[in-house]
């Protein structure tokens, strides 16, 4: 286990506490609020400097919403996002005004899923990658061009490409361009939202390798949002699994894959199709569907699909608890049964 244990060493780079994001459902002409969709409903986790935390779950589980809240692309409804800045201050990103937030933008950057829509097609690479530099004070065009050339080399593209437009590049190359832009301002925390899921298989590995290499070279901290467990396992130190807006399990990668302590995590792992025809099995396939976060089930949100569910699971909502060192789970029966 190379993941730094919380509490003993330096304080975490990012400390998310009770993060909430509700979307109101409105009706009628007067836009009366009739219900709340609890997209993110009380999420807690920390990320240490230099670590990669994987945020995993199926569509609608709130992982993307949570990551957008941390970036303040959307404003959270509640909770705190405590961030330790480069100069050692701790600030609550959730409480900052847009103006106070802007200088911090350079430290927290994002890599997008879709390499085609995330670059402005009307701007050259120089302008796309150089924009964060420009708005953060690098007004000299020559200086900017040098930095962009350096960034393009860093992500494995030729600096001569900087006068080309995004349409001249393939998906994998565009994703490298997007990474170069994210790195332009030398960020400390990078939120990667499904950065390889839109890429072809043969290109996926290139981008994963690049991310690993950049992390060790630039001492980056990653929040890696993804649905593909094999990718997450390959790149992350710790993994947080989300289900209907809540964290259900949070543990170091080896621990969670070695012995998952939540039945949903276990089912997710079993659902991944193994690229080996000799390992075929339909055992343990999860039935049913993900419930809507507007009307979640009673008790444990997972109980209608859980084969270990008991009466208690139907009534009482479990809390996130530490089942083993650094291993958190939200399950009444963790420790009793093996999933």
């Amino acid at each position, binding site marked *: 286990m190379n993941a730094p244990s919380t509490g003993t060493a330096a304080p975490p780079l990012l400390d998310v506490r009770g993060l909430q994001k509700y979307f109101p459902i409105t009706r009628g002409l007067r836009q009366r609020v009739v219900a709340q969709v609890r997209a993110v409903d009380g999420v807690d986790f920390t990320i240490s400097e230099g670590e990669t935390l994987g945020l995993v779950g199926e569509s609608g589980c709130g992982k993307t919403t949570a990551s957008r809240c941390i970036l303040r692309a959307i404003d959270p409804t509640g909770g705190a996002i405590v961030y330790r800045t480069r100069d050692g201050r701790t600030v609550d990103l959730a409480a900052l005004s847009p103006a106070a937030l802007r200088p911090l933008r350079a430290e927290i950057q994002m890599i997008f899923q879709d390499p085609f829509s995330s670059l402005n097609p009307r701007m050259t690479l120089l302008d796309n990658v150089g924009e964060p530099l420009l708005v953060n004070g690098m007004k000299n065009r020559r200086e900017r061009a040098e930095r962009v050339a350096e960034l393009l080399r860093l992500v494995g593209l030729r600096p001569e490409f900087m006068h080309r437009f995004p349409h001249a590049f393939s998906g994998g190359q565009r994703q490298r361009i997007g990474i170069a832009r994210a790195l332009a301002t030398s960020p400390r925390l990078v939120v990667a939202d499904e950065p390889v899921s839109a890429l072809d*298989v043969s290109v*996926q590995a*290139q981008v994963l390798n690049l991310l690993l290499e950049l992390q060790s070279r630039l001492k980056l901290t990653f929040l890696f949002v993804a649905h593909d467990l094999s990718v997450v396992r390959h790149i992350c130190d710790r993994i947080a699994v989300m289900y209907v807006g809540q964290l259900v399990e949070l543990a170091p990668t080896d621990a969670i894959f070695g012995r998952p302590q939540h039945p949903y995590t276990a089912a997710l*792992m079993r659902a991944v199709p193994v690229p080996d025809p000799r390992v075929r099995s339909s055992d343990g396939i999860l039935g049913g569907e993900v419930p809507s976060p507007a009307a979640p089930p009673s008790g444990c949100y997972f109980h209608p699909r859980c084969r270990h569910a008991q009466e208690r699971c139907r009534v009482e909502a479990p809390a996130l608890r530490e089942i083993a060192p650094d291993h958190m789970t939200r399950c009444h029966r963790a420790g009793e049964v093996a999933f």
Partner: protein
Amino acid sequence: MTPLLSVRDLRVSFALDEGLVRAVDGTSFDVMPGQVLGVVGESGCGKSVTMRAILQLIERPGRITSGEIRFRRRDGDNAVDIARLPPRGPEMRDIRGGEIALIPQEPMAAFSPVHTVGDQVIEAILLHGHRWQEGGRRLRRAEARDITVGLFRDVGISMPEQRIDAFSWQLSGGLRQRAMIAMALSCKPRLLIADEPTTAIDVTTQAQVLALLRDLQARYNTAIIFITHDLGVIAQMASYVVVMYLGRVMEQGPVDDIFHNPRHPYTKALLRSIPSLHGATRVALPVISGALPHPFNRPPGCPFHPRCPDAMARCAAAIPSLQPVAAHQLASCFLHHDQAEPA
């Protein structure tokens, strides 16, 4: 055993303003009755275009330029060549939907939002009524509705009596894909083409749909062509695998040989480059260097040679043809044989 479908040297090209795109460039493979054939490849490999050619759904400016698609029909001993049939003719209409059905990637787009899913399946059953009713009597609507309820139950939709009166946008992604499968089964097809049927849905739902397809295949013994870019899905579903790259078949063979004894450098590299649930973590994965070439800019010779670790001088000069390299395995690679495509 005679093949149900036999594709020989199929070529499809698109005449765009920017130039000619050879989307499928000499593809050959067979589908045996009751077999699950997996077609795997990355974007631009021509897998979807090949399937649209089999259904004669190539739209202008695309065109089947040469090759054969021989399909053995239900009633005939002789195979018809689909590539020669007029796309809108009665015979093609009867084959499409009647004997070959398609499960599309995005079922939301395949269902009409203004009719209930049940009505759409009932319509399809009434259209192919003779396959459900012996003796020529026309099927009544109530009977078709009962069949639809049965189909919905078969594909694992709970409460089928209620669900057939739902609109497609009221169903979740998984249910919608199940309804689509019911629709495809409504004409009792002998060949089912599944075009990335689980790409748009989540892993746990994907596992359900894959299990369903496997179960239905065993029950009805329908032949399935399963197209995907996901090697894991192929390993789980297919009995025979075709690996495509830039419009050509690189390698084909039984699934176990493809995954445990691949011959073509592309297949080998592809299998090495995917992260697994068991290998070492946080280490560099072996990669295929370079990017997929732009379709207007096909490399000469073997399409894979610019990215191939084992490329030889000859690979840039001639296109290797698809030749047997083992008992049941074929590959187009000069490492294994000297046969080039005639220029």
